[in-house]
């Protein structure tokens, strides 16, 4: 039985056990149909042309993991950024109240399952409304997730502390497909910052397929930082979808250093005027790592901006993929869209496939894109070495210099420091990066 067949038959049998009909069950029912029809993406799908899941899908994943209650704070402490923050922890797809620090009057930070069961209005209003139902990985998550994190930030809330979302895979059920469903609803005039991390604690193969839906209210600032530094047995298909209201500013940064295969599906829907979407990313890869950033900015209305900057550094036999889709609808006049994808290839066996895809149907817009693929500047390397800086360190400094522009939207000092440390560790140098 293939993984797809296993998934469909398992959830069909669950479905039969639950006879009640509700809107949630209807969504699940449709999701099963979508997944049955489309299945896992293959290289034949245009959107997945450069990323094959074949090697992972041979794994006989456990698709309904047991709850692991044995994880303690001490096991996971090091995966948090060292800063005063709220914490929401999900273990193998189950929200863990014990490991989370969610007490605040300013916002709701809770289990997704509970929010739905308690019929939280906002949760019911937005769940499955932001992520596209016809996407097979979203459909898979819709049918397979047990729980996740629900965050609701009421109007006029300035969250001084960031919220750290930590998704742990324990491998207690062996090789596991971990699916988490998150929903973050930000009201009007808010300021909120999220740090998200997926971490496997096991050598068992993990495939994580989280879906995070985000709604950013009018005139709010929303920052979401993804730290991807997982072990080599971990694979991630991240699906993040952001709805933006008028005058909202949303920032999503994706920092990919670890893991085996990582696919980041990231979409912004600019639904009302004067919204600004910001997407930055750094991929720093070696060995046979593979990171695919698939980004989509949907300019649906006039007077919105989008700013996109992705930097990639590929060593050894690693592979990077970047797709930057920008769709400017007929009525989206005065759109200002810009996109940059800059890459360094450090080895003959490393690869990058980069494709800007601009579809523009409005006639009064500014849209520009650029991509570069290059090597480390030899003149700069000689310059640094001639000042006594050894080759390895000089290379590392040049790589950091190349990538650091994409750190400009990181507004949490401890996070910047943490990313700088991760970069130094990844490059195997003892350098304090940053200013």
């Amino acid at each position, binding site marked *: 039985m293939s993984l797809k067949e296993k998934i469909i038959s398992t959830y069909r049998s669950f479905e039969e056990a639950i006879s009640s009909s509700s809107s949630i069950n209807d969504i699940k029912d449709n999701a099963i149909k979508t997944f049955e029809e489309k299945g896992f993406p293959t290289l034949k799908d245009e959107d997945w042309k450069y990323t094959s899941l074949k090697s992972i899908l041979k794994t006989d994943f456990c698709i309904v993991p047991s709850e692991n209650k044995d994880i303690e704070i001490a096991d996971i402490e090091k995966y948090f950024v060292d800063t005063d923050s709220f914490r929401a922890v999900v273990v193998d797809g189950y929200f863990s109240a014990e490991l989370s620090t969610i007490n605040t009057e300013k916002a709701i930070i809770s289990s997704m399952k509970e929010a739905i069961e308690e019929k939280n209005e906002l949760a019911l209003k937005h769940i499955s409304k932001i992520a596209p139902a016809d996407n097979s990985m979203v459909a898979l998550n819709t049918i397979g997730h047990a729980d996740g994190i629900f965050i609701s930030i009421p109007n006029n809330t300035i969250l001084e502390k960031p919220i750290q979302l930590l998704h742990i895979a324990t491998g207690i059920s062996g090789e596991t497909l971990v699916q988490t469903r998150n929903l973050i609803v930000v009201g009007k005039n808010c300021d909120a910052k999220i740090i998200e991390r997926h971490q496997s604690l096991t050598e068992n193969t993990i495939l994580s397929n989280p879906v995070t839906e985000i709604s950013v209210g009018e005139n709010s600032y929303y920052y979401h930082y993804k730290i991807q530094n997982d072990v080599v047995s971990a694979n991630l298909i991240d699906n993040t979808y952001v709805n933006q209201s008028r005058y909202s500013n949303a920032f999503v940064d994706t920092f990919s250093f670890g893991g085996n295969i990582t696919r980041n599906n990231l979409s912004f829907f600019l639904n009302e005027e004067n919204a600004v979407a910001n997407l930055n990313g750094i991929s720093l890869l070696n060995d046979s790592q593979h990171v695919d950033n698939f980004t989509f900015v949907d300019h649906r209305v006039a007077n919105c901006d989008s700013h996109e900057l992705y930097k990639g550094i590929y060593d050894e036999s690693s592979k990077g993929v970047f797709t930057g889709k920008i769709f400017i609808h007929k009525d989206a006049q005065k759109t200002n869209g810009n996109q940059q994808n800059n890459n360094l290839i450090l080895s003959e066996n490393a690869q990058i496939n980069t494709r800007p895809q601009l579809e523009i149907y409005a006639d009064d817009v500014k849209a520009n894109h650029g991509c570069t693929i290059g090597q480390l*500047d*030899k*003149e*700069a390397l*000689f*310059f*640094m*070495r*001639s*000042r*006594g*800086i*050894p*080759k390895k*360190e*000089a290379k590392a*400094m*040049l790589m*950091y*210099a*190349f*990538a*650091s*522009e994409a750190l400009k939207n990181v507004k949490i000092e401890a996070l910047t420091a943490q990313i700088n440390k991760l970069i130094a560790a990844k490059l195997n140098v003892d*350098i*304090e990066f940053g*200013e």
Partner: protein
Amino acid sequence: MLKIKDLKASIDGKEILKGLNLEVKPGEVHAVMGPNGAGKSTLSAVIAGKDTFEVTEGTIEFQGEIINELAPEDRAHKGIFMSFQHPVEIPGVTVTNFIKASVNAKRAAEGKEDLTPGEMLKLIKEKAAMLELDRKFLSRSLNQGFSGGEKKRNEIFQMAVLEPTLAILDETDSGLDIDALRIVANGVNNLKSPNRSAIVITHYQRLLDYIVPDFVHVLFEGRIVKTGGKELAMKLEEKGYDWIKEELKANN
């Protein structure tokens, strides 16, 4: 201190230095002048260890050791410093952090501990004052958006911090206004001591009014073809290089 014997160097199979001889003793300042394409920048790059040039024959001896095969960083650790004609821009690395990395790498090679942040700050402040650089300058990305003069001053600033035994200035004066030129020359002169030497590569005699050389060499077609005192530089400025070519022809 520096003995270059019969040095031949090429790039992409093209020979640039064709048997060059030069000796620099401790405390001496040597100026190297010559027309475009004579090999002046190649000479400085080869001494500093740039690996795009291949040394095919001859030796470079520095303080009694043949350094032909040494990596650029090892040469730097031994006290060789080259000021670049076109200093490289390195966004994301501040002047301060670059200098820290540079100073501590040299100290590590000498088996010394890193400077404490306090010591480093003191050193940087002191040298920055000498080059009339303000504090803001130190927290900017290295050479990024710097004017030509700022880049050159930054080079001399790094030289002042690193206190090299042999400083090579590759056309540091080109394009500088007179104020910047004075500041740069002052930085170089402050380093003068009986056991430090400098090679000043320049097109213009003007710099030599401020940094007074003990010897002036003419580099032509990959060789040093004439050596004299400061008056040679004046003559070159006045008459150009044609008379040298004539002399060479006559001698052949």
